């Protein structure tokens, strides 16, 4: 690594961290928003640079990852930042989504958060992004726990700030706090057991020592606790109960950020621990029994999530339950440990973040202009807000996976991987899920385009600064659906690194 890039890894967390600390001091008025915009923008630039750098190096000399010893203490005794392709890709995604949603939310925060709280809102906002980015780039198991709690605690606070609009935000935040803390505690237990077994906290070192030792009850218990804790954090069915309430009552900007990034980071933790820490010698990370159990959870998530989405009373809840289903797709792809399925899984993380982020921003615009996302009140939306409802339909098509949208590319790889690895039933579930996605998307289309418009006046016009991020996100999802070559390359190489180079 040359001198220009040598400091970049630590900057990814340092920039939003400094921003988060500064926000309560200088974040009054518009400055909080500007600070958030600048810091998330800078973090996006840094992680994007690293992504390009690592991808280029990885093409020359695979597998390539950047290791940065914090404070100059070399691993395994010091804390190591370790960035491989997957970390860099998701760090770019998280900081980029943070930037987009920040761009969206200047007015939104003015509407939904009282003036004296706004600078604290921006502080929590940036600290949450710090925690999420930190989890992605650290190579130290205990560090993962601490950063997870940093992001979680700030996110509980951010959700609770929705109480101005809906008092259920408080109970939703408290529910999430209780379940999220239990999940994080499970992860803490797992890390403790791993430490007891190996005497180290560095993930690569734990993996190396686990390979030498026979698999015993300690390791299996650690893995069980870890999978349960991570499943809670990523809201995998049946541990998703905190999610719909939290997404639908949080301030609209927070809902978009959470849907696009927080669960993805949970899934990243799962991938990282399963494949970079627990993977046994010979490559198999999960036993057939594990795959069966997780596969059942994913199948249930896809079916139950999609069916629930089709009968929700409001667009926010519909989107939240659809996220439950989409998590099922992503996890099923990573579970089977096949290169194509893993590629599909990584692609789906990126595309789902873009699409669902864009859709939650549309829900935010509805709240801004109508004051509600109740589907009954959206009758005739196609005439009243042609741009916004058009965007929602485009996002819905992406979730179904119509050819030409990004969702098609990721589902294609998922299906290919699931069939090639000998799991046709799971592949069938993915297809059924797409049909069900068509049902709940059609439900919106039917209400918005085939019902007569109501004549309740709109509160506000369509502000360009709110619609721009929606355009960019959904535009990116369509562009990547039509020109998927580059992103498939990155996802494929990332999957290969994660699976240890075995094809």
């Amino acid at each position: 690594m040359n001198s220009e890039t040598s400091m970049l890894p630590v900057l990814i967390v340092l920039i939003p961290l400094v921003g988060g600390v500064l926000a309560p001091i200088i974040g009054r008025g518009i400055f909080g928003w500007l600070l958030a915009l600048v810091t998330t923008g800078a973090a996006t630039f840094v992680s994007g640079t690293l992504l390009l750098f690592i991808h280029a190096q990885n093409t020359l000399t695979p597998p390539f990852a950047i290791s940065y010893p914090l404070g100059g203490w070399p691993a395994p005794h010091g804390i190591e930042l370790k960035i491989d392709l997957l970390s860099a890709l998701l760090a770019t995604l998280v900081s980029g989504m943070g930037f987009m949603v920040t761009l969206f939310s200047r007015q939104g925060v003015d509407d939904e958060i009282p003036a004296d709280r706004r600078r604290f809102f921006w502080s929590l906002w940036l600290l949450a992004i710090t925690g999420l980015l930190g989890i992605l780039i650290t190579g130290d198991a205990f560090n993962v726990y601490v950063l997870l709690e940093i992001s979680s605690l700030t996110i509980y606070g951010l959700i609770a700030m929705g109480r101005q609009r809906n008092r259920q935000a408080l109970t939703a935040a408290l529910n999430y706090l209780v379940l999220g803390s239990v999940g994080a505690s499970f992860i803490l237990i797992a890390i403790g057991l791993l430490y007891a077994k190996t005497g180290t906290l560095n993930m690569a070192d734990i993996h190396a020592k686990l390979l030498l030792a026979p698999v015993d009850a300690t390791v299996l218990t650690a893995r069980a606790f870890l999978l349960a804790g991570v499943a809670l954090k990523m809201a995998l069915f049946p541990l998703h109960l905190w999610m719909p309430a939290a997404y639908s009552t949080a301030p609209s900007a927070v809902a978009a950020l959470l849907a696009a990034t927080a669960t993805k980071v949970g899934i990243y933790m799962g991938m990282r621990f399963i494949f970079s820490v627990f993977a046994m010698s010979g490559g198999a990370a999960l036993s057939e029994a594990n795959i069966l159990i997780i596969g059942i959870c994913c199948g249930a998530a896809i079916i139950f999530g999609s069916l629930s989405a089709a009968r929700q009373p409001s667009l926010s809840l519909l989107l939240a339950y659809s996220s439950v289903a989409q998590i099922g797709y992503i996890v099923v792809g990573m579970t089977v440990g096949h290169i194509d399925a893993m590629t599909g899984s990584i692609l789906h993380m990126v595309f789902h973040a873009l699409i669902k982020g864009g859709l939650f921003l549309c829900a935010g615009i509805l709240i801004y202009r109508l004051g509600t996302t109740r589907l009954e009140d959206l009758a005739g939306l196609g005439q009243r807000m042609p741009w916004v409802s058009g965007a929602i339909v485009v996002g819905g098509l992406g979730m179904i996976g119509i050819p030409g949208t990004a969702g098609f590319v990721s589902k294609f790889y998922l299906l290919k991987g699931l069939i090639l690895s000998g799991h046709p039933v799971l592949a069938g579930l993915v297809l059924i899920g797409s049909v069900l996605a068509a049902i709940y998307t059609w439900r919106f289309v039917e209400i918005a385009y085939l019902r007569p418009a109501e004549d309740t006046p709109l509160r506000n016009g369509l502000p360009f600064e709110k619609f721009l991020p929606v355009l960019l996100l959904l535009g990116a999802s369509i562009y990547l659906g039509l020109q998927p070559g580059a992103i498939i390359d990155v996802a494929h190489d990332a999957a290969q690194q994660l699976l240890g180079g075995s094809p």
Partner: protein
Amino acid sequence: MSLFETFNSIAFVVIMMLGLYTLIARQNLVKKTLGLGLFQTGIFLMYITLGVRDDGVAPILQEGAPLTYTNPLPHVLILTAIVVSLSTMAVALALIIGVREEYGTIEADEIATIDRADAEEGA
């Protein structure tokens, strides 16, 4: 495994399960939070027990010291986890204050009833 470790291992599981049970079974939000705290305290005890060595002493370098030290790393880790647990508790109690202001109760079942009534009113 020494007697101390055996006793601790049983103790931390019992404490954790007591906490988890309280968390699930109680409707009072403050009691739920206390259950969460108890659950996490059990984990602290687990970590502390990990560092124990028979006849180990505090890891301070001194003349003619015995060779066995207690492992300080789990203690350092758990210091961090205690801070996290404290912050979680603080955030939870702050949220409960908000819930009390908005709903006038801190019983989870009563809050659920109120929310359901709200939803029917809106429909």
